[in-house]
């Protein structure tokens, strides 16, 4: 399979102004090819999450360029960025953010319904498929608060997968899980990368986790020191 550039960061700088203006990211540049499984590591406070929010288009207050699938994100309107997130990016957070008003299946279906590319039945069918890949098909009709932490995180991954995104980003997706559940979630990522050729960009604190990915980007004080 021919590898293409999925994501490109060009000289991204970010300032926070509260309480005093400080530069958190300093001209960060790197690119991500399709089917790569990349981890980002670095000390706490070095700017990993900040970078990820910029790359995911949720934070628009930065300098430099973010290019996703060949398109610059600069100057795009709020609803256009939402569309990019919906279609091309799957995000997995440290705290499994699920909508408590919906059951597991509906949570997974939601981004698909928003995209509206397939019929509702088709989306439901795909959601089942994702849930069974992640081994939580039985929980489809439970409410999120009836699940364990590991299960919730797997639901969140299924949701990230529903629109078959170009790229999945994760901000410490195993950070809040015990050893056993971390292992399960890591396996899932590994399988996605190897079997489904899914491009992944995962921030982690866990060096063991990082060592098993195909590429490690190491950050320090808002800069990339190794990649």
């Amino acid at each position, binding site marked *: 399979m021919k590898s293409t550039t999925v994501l490109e960061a060009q000289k991204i700088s970010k300032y926070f102004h509260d309480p005093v203006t400080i530069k958190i990211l300093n001209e960060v540049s790197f690119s991500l090819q399709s089917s790569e499984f990349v981890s980002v590591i670095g000390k706490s406070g070095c700017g990993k999450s900040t970078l990820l929010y910029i790359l995911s288009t949720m934070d628009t207050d930065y300098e430099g360029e973010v290019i996703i699938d060949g398109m610059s994100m600069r100057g795009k309107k709020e609803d256009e960025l939402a569309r990019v997130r*919906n279609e091309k990016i799957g995000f997995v957070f440290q705290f499994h*953010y699920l909508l408590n008003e919906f059951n597991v299946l509906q949570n997974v279906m*939601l981004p698909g319904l928003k995209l509206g590319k397939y019929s509702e039945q088709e989306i439901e069918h795909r959601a089942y498929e994702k849930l069974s890949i992640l081994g939580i098909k039985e929980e489809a009709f439970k409410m999120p608060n009836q699940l364990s932490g590991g299960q919730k995180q797997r639901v969140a991954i299924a949701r990230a997968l529903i629109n078959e995104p170009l790229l999945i980003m994760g901000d410490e997706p195993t950070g809040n899980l015990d050893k056993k559940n971390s292992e399960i979630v890591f396996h899932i990522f590994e399988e996605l990368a190897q079997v489904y050729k899914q491009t992944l960009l995962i921030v982690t604190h866990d060096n063991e986790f990082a060592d098993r990915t195909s590429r490690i980007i190491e950050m320090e004080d808002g800069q990339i020191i190794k990649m």
Partner: protein
Amino acid sequence: MKYRLIFRIAYSLLLARWKQTLVAAIGVTFSITMFITLLSFMSGLNDLLDGLILNRTPHVRMYKEIQVSKKQPIDYIQKATQGHNFIKSVKPKKDRIDIYNSEQIIQSLKKDTRVLGVAPKITAQVFFNVGSIDLTGSINGIDTEEENRLFKFSDYVTSGNFMDLKNVPNSIILGKGLATNMMVNIGDVVQVTTSKGEQFSLKVVGYFQSGLQDLDKVQSYASIKTTQKLLNQSENYITDIQVKLKDILWAPPTAKEYQEIYQIDAIDIQKANSQFETGSSVRSLISYAVGITLLIVAGFGIYNILNMLIYEKMDSIAILKAVGFSGQDVNLVFITIALSIGIFGGSLGLLGGFGLSSLIDQIPFNTESLPTIKTYPINYNPKFYMIGGVFSIITTYLAGYFPAKKASTIDPVIIIRGK
């Protein structure tokens, strides 16, 4: 498809806080119920009071006023080009008080397309002779059928048949108060003296009650023929021409026009009864003000609930945005919640308003002066329901507008980071 999804999300968020939402909806229901009831009742009351006078008053009354000549003799011989003519102690000239050419005027009025009907009338001042006492009063000579068609005469004839005026020669219908004062019953004969001093006997065939006690103590009705006979006048003798128009609002310009065309005095109903108009409009104004105040209070309730909901659902909103819902979508979700509360509460309120006003409509309301009224008056004007419905939607929309806007601008990064 897109809106169905928004609706589904709104519905789930709403269900998650269904108790508070219900309270907010009940607030709207209550205010719309009160709004409808208040307006229906007030307007019913207005109609009743207006009917008391307005239904029985011609829209345009044409008559001849006893007044001084507008042009005094001196004006004919010497034009006041310089200075003014001062004339002292001017008196009205002696003139006939009946309308000249009344028959032709009536015929031509009946051809006017704006006119619903024309009823001639004669007013005559008389004394009713009771033993040695004379009571002053007046007799209205009317065209019985036209008077009934245009001014609902039969509604006020509480005893006796109003058509007897026409069918029984030399008959009279007395005001209830007048009859009581004279102590006469139906079938009795009363003695009447005209202002010219002639005596006449009339047979009482009924009583009428207008709702205005003072009126009932002096007024009475007879047919035009009887009155003409009483006054010893010819068949053309008419003192008033009463015109009812198809729309009461046309009265002022029409009156002015008739005055020009027929060269007699014409007064419109608005001028003749301006105090009633004012009373009605003030009453409606008060009811609208109270109703709308209630709605605004309900609107604040919705505003609060939505604000609370947004604070509670910050996480959900952030997630929706992170997975690709735009600010516009989130905005729509909360507007939908607000409007659902408004539509649900509002429709119940319309039903409640209808129920409550029908209930009031059943409450007996008997009063001496209003013989045709048996229960409290209610006006079921669909206009009130429309205003109530539209207002409930507008208020809830406005109540939802700012919270929805706030929700749409929530920055997901801040929420996600904040954990």
